[in-house]
């Protein structure tokens, strides 16, 4: 059969490639880059560090709860847990209050979800393309760095700072309320 020599050559080639794969060093993590989730809030580009998030949910039902905090949208259920949902736009100072389709899960002491309108993709960004942001006037303290992703400059939302601000608010409910 005429095809046999070719087949055995091909098999030999594959076998060599397979063996060679073991001889090569393991790919190591590139510590000079950061993974970012690119998100859109009211049409403006932002980024979240993937290392600060624990998951991304889309189109989850958010149950509104009565609250005095406008940035608090309600709760959603995730794997048997009740997760409070905050509006990322409202936390960043945007007036428009419209629950986004996307929720980034943030694991802190309690899991929290940050809702936003557009998910624009994942970016692998060199550290050199991330620079400290200058705080302008009374701008939110959650933006401490900006990243260049392609041709777009994206402010990186510091989730740690955001959580600190959420936790600091003194109108969080107390575990026990006094009966009147």
């Amino acid at each position, binding site marked *: 059969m005429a095809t046999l020599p070719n087949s055995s050559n091909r098999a030999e080639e594959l076998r060599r490639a397979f063996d060679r794969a073991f001889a090569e060093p393991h790919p190591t993590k590139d510590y000079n880059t950061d993974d970012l989730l690119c998100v859109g809030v009211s049409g403006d580009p932002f980024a979240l560090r993937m290392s600060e998030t624990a998951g991304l949910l889309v189109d989850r039902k958010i*149950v509104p*709860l*009565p609250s*005095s905090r406008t940035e608090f949208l309600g*709760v959603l259920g995730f794997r048997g847990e*009740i997760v409070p949902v905050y509006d990322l736009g409202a936390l960043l100072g945007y007036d428009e209050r419209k629950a986004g389709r996307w929720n980034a899960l943030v694991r802190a002491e*309690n*899991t929290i979800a940050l809702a936003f309108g557009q998910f624009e993709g994942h970016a692998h960004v060199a550290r050199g393309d991330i620079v400290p942001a200058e705080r302008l006037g009374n701008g939110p303290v959650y933006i401490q760095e900006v990243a260049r992703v392609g041709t777009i400059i994206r402010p990186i939302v510091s989730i740690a700072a955001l959580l600190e601000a959420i936790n600091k608010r003194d109108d969080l409910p107390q575990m026990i309320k006094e009966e009147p």
Partner: protein
Amino acid sequence: MSMRPDPYKYFRVEARELLDQLVQGALSLEKGVFAPELVPKLLRLAHTLKGAARVVKQVEIAEFAHAVEEALVPLRDQAKPFSQELARHAFELLDAIEERLKHLEPPREAESEPAPRPPADELLRTVRVDIGEMDALLDGILEANTQLGSVRRALGTLERARGVADLLLAQLASPRTRGAEGQPDLGPAARTSAWAEELRAEIVALDRQLTSSADQLERELRQVRQRAEQLRLLPANAVFASLERTARDVAQTAGKRVAFETKGGEARLDAHVLATIHGALVQVVRNAVAHGIETEAERTQAGKPTAGRVLVEVARVGNRVAFRCQDDGRGVDLEAVRRAAQKKGILSKDTEHLRLDELVQLLLKGGLTTARTVSEMSGRGIGLDVVRDAASRLGAEVTLKTEAGRGSALEIVVPISLSSLDALMVEVAGMTTAIPLDAVRGAFHIRTADAARLAGADSIVYEGNALPFLPLAYPLREKVSPGHNGGPGVAVVVGTDSELAAIGVDRLVGIMNVVMRPLPRVAPVDPVVAGAALDAEGNPQIIVDPAVVVGMARRGDRPASAPEVPRAAPVLVVDDSLTTRMLEQSILESAGYQVDCAVSGEEALEKARQRQYALFLVDIEMPGMDGFTFVEQTRADPFLREIPSILVTSRSSAEDRRRGQAVGARAYIAKSEFDQAHLLRTIRTLVGNNQ
């Protein structure tokens, strides 16, 4: 991680169950309960325990169990009564078995740190499943349910595909695809037609199969989940037997008589909470009997019954559970607390005139005892320290009420981690919300005559009395739905006999057993929300705190921000054409409206009677009931007549417009002139901007 083999894994569970039943039985015998089958039952239990202990080579336990048998045999033969001496002997033997059982701890994981968790209460070992495993099971089931949602969505896709196939068939059947003179062209078109037929048949079969299996899966999963959730919880009475035993032991040692009572034992609570609270309750009961209850002679002198009463009660209060221990003894000697505090240097001369509640707080701080002598049972001042420690671990509040000569009541109020409760499910502003059933006194439809008065009023007549009325939408900060005749459709009467209020809801959904979970600390919610339960699809449902709602209704509270965050009723799109439905739905949703769809006038009427809508967007030409008839019927229905309708149609004759107007449609939009902006403007004019 490897575990060392645990040879006593099953023995521990079995022995624990047998021992609990033996203790319970011995307590009944001691109280003089006469039941002919009791002694033989106890003999069987002791015998089973003996056999099981021998199998795992626990010789001592086997011997003690044998001794219990020996002690009980004369009772069966009615040779002896269950004397005090016999009781003491039996309890000593059971205690000895208990002690040996404690030494049969499971081996710890070799690499793990010493377990920092609070010691699990021995009594609660009868939870045979690992709670972590159970949680994982629950998570899995929830997630499976969520997946089921995807199957449901796939069914939607299938429905649309079927629509396309229908369309294809219709197109193929039209004259243009037929051959000359109406004769069917048996060429490519015929083959395509055959394929389309086949496609349709396949889809219909698949649709049927998927629907049936999804229904079944949903039903099965719901049952499994309910069972699993119940397993995760324990009835509060799991700790009652050992509390009764404590009361008995202390009373006997101190030479007192005690009648021990319990209440609320059926409440199912998180095993962790029960395990932690159990140690504290043992101390509280011990204190009540040792310090509170007087001797028979003292009680007779004080004109009280000779047996002191100790009542342990478990009750749910909003999002917390109260464990109360009440006695009718002498009350806490606050002067003795003052003296003890001064002696220890905690209280200086200038704080001598502390108020009663401050002295109580001092006592709760711990380290103080008012007992004159230290006994085996109490008097070292550590009892309340144990209570304080358990309370701090559970984030609980402890209060003590005491009255000289009348008794004391100590209450530990614990925030709920998990608890199950029966709830009345109601719908408010499109959301299903739970009201704990134990607070519900009744429910009634709000009559048309009442409705107008309700619009601005804050009371309603129920069984001849005027009750404060509050639409539940207000405390939930939802827009009060216009509802039937301008108000909520149903009033639910909640509260206690002395403090009742009626709360308005859109409709009643039914009664369900739900598992209440606390809301995370970072959820800044109003106190009206006691917690949340997860529905079959894993989405949260609000559980309201009836006490808060009743309080608001009675005070006439109306949150100021209520009207600022309206969430409007949805728009109902009624059209038999899939394309038009999808197009209109997407336009309306993009503009921030909630949308429901119906494929026929009949379905739309059915939906409109179940849910509150802001507007109907109706096609005229539909198979069955047409758009004119639909509008006419809604206008004739007293519950639906106020909801505006817009007719959307490909017919644009003046006659049709006139007919539309005559049946009561508020606007008429021709498909040929269809313009997104015009549609939205029209809707806004009729119902406002609902974003």
